[in-house]
């Protein structure tokens, strides 16, 4: 099939994936690995551009698809990183892949983090657990354009020290002027760092609230409490952005599963401004 035909077909048929090869597999923490995928078709690869915060649907024929955030730098050529936590059938199957094997890729989908809205401002990234993965491209974007941003602070929490993601990158991030504060729920014998929840890290910050933009991703309850702290400190509602999660199957607003009120999380999100979703967050079981 010629590339043009593929493109046309994709425009007509949103279910059509493109094959990609696993070029690297990096164990991160127990149950979590990062896959570097290279799109096989060079023309498709050349046209693939994504915003920090967007996701791909990774497809294993016969098993299914999983929505996985892209966790590499948008400026990185060649491969796309996906940090995957084993959760269900598809991610289990993904975790058994070896370098050189293939997956199907559909994407990129969804709204990205508002990098333009962060320019010239102080940026707080508040993440929990696997929620750091969709924020890592933001960090890379900031590192690439450091002078476009003011103070940049990463607040990150996980269950145990062994579950903190990307710890080997923190020194490099700190060197570029990103403040990194971590916390865990349960320490271990070696842990000398903070014990407690991510919102407390926010509480402790000295902030210029009017100049601050908050980007947050993690368990929904953690997000809510982080936002609670941010609002208490007078960070503006339209300067708060969160990444929501819902059951996603088609990723293009056709299957109906991912609805949150009037929004389809797959296409109107997953990144939302707080102002947009505030009324929905307050309703139970919506």
């Amino acid at each position, binding site marked *: 099939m010629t590339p043009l035909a593929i493109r046309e077909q994709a425009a007509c048929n949103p279910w059509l994936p493109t094959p990609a090869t696993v070029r690297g597999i990096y164990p991160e923490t*127990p*149950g979590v690995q990062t896959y570097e995928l290279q799109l096989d078709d060079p023309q498709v690869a050349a046209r693939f551009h994504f915003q920090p915060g967007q996701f791909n649907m990774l497809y294993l024929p016969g098993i299914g698809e999983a929505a996985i955030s892209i966790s590499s730098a948008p400026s990185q050529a060649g491969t796309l990183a996906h940090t995957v*936590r*084993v*959760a269900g059938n598809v991610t289990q199957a993904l975790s058994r892949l070896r370098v050189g094997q293939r997956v199907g890729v559909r994407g990129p989908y969804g709204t990205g983090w508002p990098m333009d809205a962060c320019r010239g401002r102080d940026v707080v990234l508040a993440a*929990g*657990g*696997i929620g750091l993965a969709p924020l890592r491209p933001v960090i890379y974007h900031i590192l690439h354009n450091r002078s476009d941003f003011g103070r940049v602070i990463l607040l990150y929490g*996980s*269950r145990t020290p062994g*579950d903190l993601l990307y710890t080997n990158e923190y020194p490099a991030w700190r060197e570029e002027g990103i403040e990194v504060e971590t*916390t865990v*729920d349960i*320490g271990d014998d070696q842990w*000398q*760092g*903070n*014990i*407690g*929840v991510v*919102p*407390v890290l926010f*509480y*402790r910050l000295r902030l210029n609230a009017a100049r601050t933009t908050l980007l947050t991703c*993690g*368990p929904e*309850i*953690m997000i809510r*409490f982080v936002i609670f702290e941010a609002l208490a400190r007078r960070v503006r509602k339209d300067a708060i952005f969160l990444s929501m999660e819902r059951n996603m199957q088609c990723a293009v607003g056709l299957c109906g599963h991912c609805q949150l009120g009037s929004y389809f999380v797959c296409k109107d999100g997953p990144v939302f401004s707080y102002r947009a979703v505030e009324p929905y967050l307050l309703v139970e079981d919506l």
Partner: protein
Amino acid sequence: MVSREILDGLRFFQGLPAEYVEQLAGIAEERNVEAGSMLFREGETASHVHIVCTGKVSLQIRVPGRGPIELQTIGPGELLGWSALLNNGPMTAAARAATDCRLISLNAVQLLALCEHEPRLGMEVMRRLASSLSQRLRYTRLHLLDVYRHEFPPSAAGGGQS
């Protein structure tokens, strides 16, 4: 006795009339504590209320058979040792400086006397204390919820959670 400027920089004292801050500064002490040293131990009678300026303090409880378990880290702007103000009973947790710390400490007896003498100041202090406790409780609850639980397959999660 500490300078008013130091207290002005702490959230606990924000919004207090200058006169009250002066009075509190008059009974406050600045303390520098080395990493590793104990601020107070379990079972001790509390004598001071502390506010952390810089550094981190680790709250611990000794569980028979398990040793001291670190529960929470207390950081800048947060309170420690409030039981001194409430019932003068023994501390139910120990506090160990996790890093070098600078604290503002207020002697409980003096603080209570001040509160009795100036009821309005007393109300402000108690209100701030309640707010601090409320925040602590909120985040202790969030901590208890074990929010990353679903990120672990049943075999890896402790406590038999699925």
